[in-house]
């Protein structure tokens, strides 16, 4: 129920709407709950409403952390489960 998905804004429309790209599908989302959305922004959309912005800086920090610990474990040669080729 409360599952939202990240989308990228492709155009700002009138009356609090935006056109957004959801993994290749383009749809219309309401931006009534976010302040001043811009083209290129990432939004988190639930049931047709952007409930917040996706903070790209924080998302990249999380992904960088995952990449860093993965590289560290591979360098250390730790046997992992599940085994990955």
């Amino acid at each position, binding site marked *: *129920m*409360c*599952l*939202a*998905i*990240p989308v*990228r804004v492709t155009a700002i429309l009138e009356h609090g709407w935006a056109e957004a790209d*959801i*993994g290749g599908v383009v749809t219309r989302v*309401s931006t*009534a*709950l*976010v*302040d001043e959305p811009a083209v290129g922004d*990432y939004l*988190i959309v*639930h*049931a*047709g*409403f952007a*409930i*917040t*912005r*996706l*903070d*790209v800086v*924080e*998302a990249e*920090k*999380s*992904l960088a952390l*995952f*990449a860093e*610990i*993965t590289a560290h*474990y591979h360098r250390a040669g*730790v046997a*992992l*489960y*599940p*085994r*990955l080729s």
Partner: protein
Amino acid sequence: MRYIHGFRDGAAAAVIAARIAASVDPAREYHLMEFCGGHTHAIFRYGVQNLLPRNVRLVHGPGCPVCVLATPRLDAAIALAGRANVTLLSYGDMLRVPASKRRSLLKARARGADVRMVYSALETLDVAAANPDREIIFFAIGFETTTPATAHLILEAQRLGLKNLSVYCNHVLTPAAIQSILDAPGTRQWDNVRIDGFIGPSHVSAVIGSRPYEAFAAEHRKPVVIAGFEPLDVMQAVDMLVRQLNEGRACIENQFTRGVTRDGNRTAQALMAEVFELRPEFE
């Protein structure tokens, strides 16, 4: 998309699993409850439990207000839908939920009631405008993820001067629901259900922020980590909870930093405060 698939990387999941395995105390058990069915879904879909040490157990929580909506409310919605000249709209997952006497909104529709599924609450506006001679009712359900949408719908209906649109409001508050579970007889003593920490829902927290959880972490002395719904989010949240428990801490931590802040979405909160009133009990 990078911000979906990046959080499903198998190599990183294996590494986080190894980190968790290395940090657990084999002499103790870790029972972690996820409140939200979205996390349960991710745990089963990606086999997260199988990546965890045997003494880290995920306890599946209550799920969402769609599943736990009081039956009389659903019965009332079915009765409304059965009235002449009424069109009732709600979210898709609500239509299948069983009411009393094995009824459901889908079955009511099969019997001729005008029940329609919407993805967005705002679709109700178009239906109301296109059918000025019918009474259009939006069966509004959900936590604070859907409540601001209903608030916006009501203001838009007012702005457009739609006279044939009403809302049957069944919204509930997340902190109140969590408190109610924790205060339930049997849970309070932590005997029947052993829970050491909680995985908190991220998307509702994007609206309400992490602050509402602070009181209950302090009161119940259980750590809470607000986590996203992708498998790496859940794995990282388990890692953070295990570390808190090992260190004897009971704090609110936020794993979903890409969408949740301490204050949440103030615009959405202001909209809810403008349109809705709080009542002390749901039923």
